[in-house]
């Protein structure tokens, strides 16, 4: 504990440097805007900012991008509550009761509780990250290729289980992502695969054009043509103060949401989205008067908003400790660090303590900045929502082209972005989940390498995966998860928890076209 505090002090000495502080602040503002704007989610926002971080030092890069990530979580809730448009997909659940509160003239308390819940959950998440990541990293030092193989397999199975919608379609998306990850030079044999004669594809398909295409461009293709500016309530500062009763009934949901969100955040998948669904389902289930949900219950805002923020932080645990991205967003952040020659993984926390602890401390600062910034300035931010979409989407598209081109100064990345945009648009129309594609792309080379290294270690003996207790345990767990995920295909009896918490339901119809990961 003493060592942790000492390290945290080191972190604060980094995070409170004026330059880091400024970038944390800038990241939070950009994130809030990105979260509010239709057509730009945290993933596309972070991907587009990635090239801008190449000239910065690694600490500032990761602090800036993390600021965008959790800033977007805050921003998304504002549009959900005020307009019933989730700025990002994790805010879909907030729409239901948040907007009902707005209709009852209680937008202020809803926004305040969302911000307070996010702040508390974010802080709880950072404490969890601080305590868990170094321990997990120390443990993971014992991991060899077979353990990584089992862990990655487990991650993919959990992802397929937790994703909303059809299981088969999720598995198909994951397979498409894994196949995209096969493009480029094979690390073990030197063969260039599926490059179709393009030298630029030798290094593989980058996560940035894929993420921007799938989540940014496809969103615009789906929503372009809408020109109506919805009416927006501008809450007054005085109305933002929640009543004592509001605070009292929100404490429980915030606490539960923080805990659930953090735990789900560690597990692979679109954690921040799933966590808000699970939290809403649990709050509705344990409420004394569940019929209030959907009609402006403040618990329905407090729980999901806390959960998605805690999950956003929880996702950094496997990223920092194991070097494994559990969501497309952390995958882009890993790419940001790798540009600077830093590979996240078990040794990073020891080798780069100022980076890890500076990052942790900056998240404390960022959470405080967001609370201070967002509540009083919410009236200013909502002005952005008055800009007609006809002006916004061409500018967002121009940013997408700019961002993708500048990753490696190549128009091939812009073409990949456009192909992915078209593919994402069609897949969404056919009900396919896009997040597994981005995650599969990142995990594919890791998975293939670890499988082949494992087999090289054992001279081709597959029992290597059964002889090591940790590997065996993870594989068995993975198979159990796979069994449960495929169970609905064979049995129609009973409902599993997914449908009970709403994961198998479609988002509210008004919300669906505008939501994005």
């Amino acid at each position: 504990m003493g060592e942790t505090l000492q390290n945290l002090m080191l972190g604060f000495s980094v995070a409170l440097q004026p330059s880091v502080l400024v970038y944390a602040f800038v990241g939070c503002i950009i994130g809030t805007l990105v979260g509010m704007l239709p057509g730009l989610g945290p993933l596309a926002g972070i991907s587009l900012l990635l090239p801008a971080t190449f000239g910065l030092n690694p600490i500032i890069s990761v602090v800036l991008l993390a600021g965008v990530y959790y800033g977007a979580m805050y921003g998304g809730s504002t549009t959900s509550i005020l307009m019933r448009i989730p700025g990002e997909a994790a805010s879909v659940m907030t729409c239901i009761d948040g907007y009902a509160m707005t209709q009852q003239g209680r937008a202020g308390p809803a926004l305040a509780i969302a911000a307070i819940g996010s702040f508390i959950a974010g802080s709880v998440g950072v404490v969890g990250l601080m305590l868990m990541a170094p321990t997990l990293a120390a443990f993971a030092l014992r991991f060899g290729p077979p353990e990584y193989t089992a862990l990655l397999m487990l991650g993919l199975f959990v992802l397929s289980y937790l994703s909303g919608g059809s299981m088969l379609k999720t598995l198909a998306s994951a397979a498409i992502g894994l196949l995209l990850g096969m493009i480029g030079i094979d690390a073990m044999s030197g063969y260039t695969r599926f490059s179709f004669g393009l030298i630029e594809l030798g290094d593989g398909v980058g996560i940035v054009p894929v993420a921007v295409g799938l989540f940014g461009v496809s969103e615009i293709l789906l929503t372009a043509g809408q020109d109506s500016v919805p009416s927006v309530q501008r809450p007054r500062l005085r109305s933002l103060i929640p009543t004592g009763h509001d605070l009292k009934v929100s404490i429980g949901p915030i606490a539960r949401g923080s805990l659930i969100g953090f735990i789900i955040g560690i597990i692979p998948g679109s954690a921040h989205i799933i966590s808000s669904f699970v939290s809403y389902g649990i709050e509705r289930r344990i409420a004394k008067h569940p019929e209030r949900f959907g009609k402006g219950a403040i618990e329905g805002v407090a729980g999901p908003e806390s959960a998605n923020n805690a999950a956003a932080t929880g996702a950094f645990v496997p990223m920092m400790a194991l070097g494994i991205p559990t969501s497309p967003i952390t995958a882009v952040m890993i790419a940001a660090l790798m540009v600077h020659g830093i590979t996240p993984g078990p040794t990073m926390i020891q080798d780069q303590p100022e980076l890890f602890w500076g990052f942790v401390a900056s998240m404390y600062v960022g959470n405080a900045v967001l609370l201070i910034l967002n509540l009083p300035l919410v009236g200013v931010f909502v002005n952005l929502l008055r800009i007609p979409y006809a002006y916004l989407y061409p500018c967002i598209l121009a940013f997408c082209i700019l961002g993708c081109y500048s990753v490696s100064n190549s128009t091939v990345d812009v073409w990949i972005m456009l192909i992915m945009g078209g593919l994402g648009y069609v897949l969404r129309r056919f009900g396919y989940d896009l997040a597994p594609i981005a995650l599969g792309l990142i995990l594919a080379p890791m998975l293939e390498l670890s499988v082949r290294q494992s087999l090289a270690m054992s001279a081709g003996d597959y029992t290597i995966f059964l002889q090591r207790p940790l590997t065996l345990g993870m594989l068995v767990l993975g198979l159990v998860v796979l069994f449960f995920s495929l169970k609905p295909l064979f049995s129609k009896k009973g409902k599993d928890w997914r449908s009970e918490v709403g994961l198998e339901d479609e988002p509210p119809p008004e919300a669906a076209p505008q939501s994005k990961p």
Partner: protein
Amino acid sequence: MADAVTTAPARGLRNDQASGLVLLLLAIFIGWQNRSYPLGSLQEPGPGYVPLMLAVFLGAIGVLIALRGTRAQPVRDMKWPEAPRAVVILIACGIAAYALERLGYRITIFAFLVFFLGVVERKKWYSVLIVSTGFALLSFLLFDTVLKVQLPTGPWGY
């Protein structure tokens, strides 16, 4: 599985059947492309091994989706109201990608925005000019000059 379950009698191809078959065709194409890479053996997989396994997996999933898609919405009933606009957007972005290194960032983005705001959205000419010029110049200033992200310049230095 069924996105929009209909009670109407089956007629024509369902959307899940169509997407499942496309996935199967994609898997066959990947398997065909993969034939030039050595497969290796089960004990020592070569560069073609994992892609082939994934293609087989994708194909199998595609078949399952198609088989279970009998109650999904018929393809002919799917509405694509935004499709014409989406095609215009993709073509315009493609032209911009082609022009980016030939004309330079600022000219390309200016023309790109003028097309969308002026031609597609039919906004007033002065607001088109202000937004297009402002965006092209300010984004170049921010990214190229301040953040040192190299952006292409064309033969006229823009």
